């Protein structure tokens, strides 16, 4: 097992190198650079910037250099722990990223737990009570949850909050605690606010997992081994939990790899609508303005999360299902 993990970890190094070139290439692919986008964003607001400023910007940031030079400067820094410099913010990238990563992870984990807490029992119930009234009700709700885009749900909730309750549902903190240092009160305030994005983020994920869980379990419920166990007199509950559910869990675990990055990047629109200070909006803004090092750092981080997530899910799968081998 430890050899397996070591081998996988070593393999990650060349893989991440390839990923970094691809990321950087993709960021640089659209025509123009940070300076033109900066000028365009000002011009769109009827505002102007002098050509001199743009020129000095390009020279200062080395945007006039060839692609490979720019890439090398960046990746060389990354290897030494320096993620580069955000043109937009005139700040080192690392200070920008870590500030947002904490809340992002917290929100992602909360949404993941919510997803599982909803999807698991409902999925099992639906499978065991196939075509019952509640199965239909949950199926209906699940389809609805899949069909309604999260950002729309967010906007509707926020409008209802403001128009009928005079309550601002956006954000993760109330105004009073926005910039306060961490305290018990602030944690309580965060818990009061986090359920809205948690539910919205988790809804579509839960809806699809309910379907997956139900289908997987249905496949297992009529297998001969289940019949055998039942014939031997095992109680229905123990039987379910010990055998078919364990196998039906495989997809939960094997998708963990892309659940992690998806929770960061998939929540971009919802974070924008709900005004959450998570990584998503910053990443989007960086991509739009071609703030290349900031965007690059985010993309690298997301890829790293995917790779780690896949590794974790592989390990968990091996533990969960003895049929899976390391080779």
């Amino acid at each position, binding site marked *: 097992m430890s050899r397996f993990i070591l081998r996988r970890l070593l393999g990650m190094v060349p893989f991440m190198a390839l990923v970094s070139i691809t990321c950087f290439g993709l960021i640089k692919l*659209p025509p123009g650079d940070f300076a033109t986008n900066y000028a365009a964003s000002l011009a769109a*607001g009827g505002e102007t910037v002098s050509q001199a400023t743009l020129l000095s910007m390009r020279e200062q*940031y080395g945007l006039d250099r060839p692609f490979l030079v720019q890439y090398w400067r960046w990746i060389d820094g990354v290897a030494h722990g320096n993620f580069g410099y955000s043109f937009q*913010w005139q700040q080192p990238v690392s200070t920008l990223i870590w500030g947002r990563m904490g809340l992002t992870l917290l929100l992602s984990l909360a949404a993941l737990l919510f997803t599982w807490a909803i999807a698991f029992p409902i999925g099992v119930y639906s499978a065991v009570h196939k075509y019952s009234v509640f199965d239909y009700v949950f199926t209906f709700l699940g389809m609805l949850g899949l069909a309604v885009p999260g950002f729309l749900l967010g906007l509707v909730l926020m409008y209802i909050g403001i128009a009928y309750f*005079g309550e601002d549902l956006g954000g993760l*903190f109330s105004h009073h605690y926005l*910039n306060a240092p961490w305290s018990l009160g602030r944690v309580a305030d965060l818990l009061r606010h986090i359920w809205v994005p948690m539910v919205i983020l988790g809804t579509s994920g839960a809806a699809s997992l309910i379907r997956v869980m139900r289908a997987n379990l249905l496949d297992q419920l009529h297998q001969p081994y289940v019949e055998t166990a039942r014939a031997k007199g095992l109680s229905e509950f123990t039987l379910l939990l010990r055998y078919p559910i364990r196998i039906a869990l495989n997809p939960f675990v094997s998708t963990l790899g892309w659940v992690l990055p998806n929770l960061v990047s998939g929540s971009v629109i919802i974070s924008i609508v709900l005004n959450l200070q998570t990584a998503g909006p910053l990443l989007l803004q960086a991509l739009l303005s071609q703030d290349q090092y900031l965007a690059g750092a985010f993309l690298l981080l997301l890829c790293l999360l995917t790779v780690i997530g896949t590794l974790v899910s592989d390990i968990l799968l091996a533990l969960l299902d003895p049929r899976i081998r390391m080779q």
Partner: protein
Amino acid sequence: MRRRNFLALSLSTALAPQAWAATLAEAPALAALVKAGKLPKLAERLPQQPEVVTPVANVGKHGGILRNALAGDADHNAILRIVGNMGLTRWSPDFQKPVPNVAAGWDESADARSFTFKLRPGMKWSDGHPFTADDILFCINDLLANKEFFAVPPSQYVVAGKLVTATKQDDHTVTFHFAEPYRIFPEVLAGPLGQHPVLYAKHYCQQFVPKYNPGVAKMVADSHQPNWASLFRAKCGDIEVPARWANPERPVLDPWVVERGYTGGTTEVTMRRNPYFWQVDTAGNQLPYIDGIDFKVVSNEQSMLLAVIGGQIDLQLRYIPSIGNKPILAQHADKAGYVLQPLTPTDANAVCIYLNQTDKDEKLKGLLTNKTFRIALSHAMDRDSINEIVFLGQSKPWQVAPLPGDSFYNEQLATQYLKFDPKKANELLDSLGLKRSGTGPRTYPDGSKLFLTVDVMVNETAMIDTIQMVKKQWADVGIDLGINTMERSQFYNRGQDNAYDIDLEAATGGVHPTTDPRAWLAVHQLDSRQSIPWVQWYTSGGKLGIAPSASMQERLKLWDQWKQTADQAAADALVKKILQMAADAFETIGTVQALTVFGIRSKRLMNVPASMPNGWTYPNPAPTLPQQYYFTDA
């Protein structure tokens, strides 16, 4: 007539400093600090002759926090427009002339080559350090002229290829010298791009310049900045960067100073009063009235709109004013406690149709550069329906021209070819040999397909609605138009690549057309969309780009003359001639007048003018002096 000498005026009417001290008043919070010995007395903090501001309606009272919203991570100009348009001069509230601001007054030489600005003795930066001529010289000599700071110096300080120079007469008198006459210099200083001379406090910012501090290299390395110029900008800002509002230590001349800065990931930017602010009202109260401003950072316009109708915002003039938002803003006004704040247009047209005069497709270029073709397109448009349907009947048909009432109003430019006359349009198109069978699309004389595309930014919903109507109207006379909606940066990249047939954009210049004449003169690097290669030709002195039409070349020549004409009447005559030539050339097609849009202000917020121009050169609301706004219940 334009020669002015405000200096004499201000000196003769000013009271002696001691007389001020007797009647001065300050905010209670500051008075408490003075009492505790933590702040010098008010009379010592103000200049010997503070600028006396006459409030819009009445003398206000100190207190309260103004709530505003910023859109996302790059809305630094929203702060600039409320807090930071503190140049040596500023626009008069009616956008007619520049008036003294940081400077007490100025005097210009008869040839308009040198300008002498008189500063206010005793005036201080927000940290209490004196503001003097040295601060201005620091910017001109050590920054503007420094190739490491500006690879090319900003064009607003360059005349005839030479950068401005400055000499210090005494601590409070500075003279700017230009190589050629530069009559509009005081106007330039009034706009946001002319603030450099008073942006940087030498005593603080010099620590980031190698000339003054040999230790800069280490500071650069420690802060992971690429070079000293970036470190400088991160600490002391530049006109249009978020970092200008990020550093609470940076001394400023603004009414409010940064408390919690605008940095990546921030959720709220807060600013608090500058205890050394140099303006007082007519009753001797130090401005600003309002204690501070809280800028909530929201990520998109819908969230901003929700915050507004939820009553969480006291003043919002950006992003929410659009024709489509007016009903929902009006609907929630009473409950949320705000009133609509009219913003009068300064644009020359709501939706300007720029026909690319240097289209890469030769056959199409032949048509787009043909005036008869453009006239036909104009007559084929039913602007009354566009006005009714897209602009709710609030506007009126208009070509791209200065608005009535502006001194450069030109009737021909504004109203020619406006009539909806499909019959005439068809005749004109027939006369060009564009063949048509039945009611289908026309073809070129050689029978090949005639197809035009128009680029429009996806966030400009009114423009998209307009062009969809135009598409139908043009189809009725056999002109086949494809609509290409795209993201903003794509729109600008295609503009720079000269890769479009037609662009839709706002046209500036409805008021004070000389501040941004992009629609009549190919001078704007990004937005003179009648032809970007023409602009490149002009700005490179004929080395790059494509040579413009004879008419445009003549206009550009007149424009160069205009810049360097010392006499105002002669200069105005040149502008009139340019506009007349633009009218005869008819390069761009207009739709309807830009219309009054509505922001909001809290019912409790007073001294806001009943309406204000909406523009960038007049960076509203700054020239209406937000420092004299106040809350009734403060």
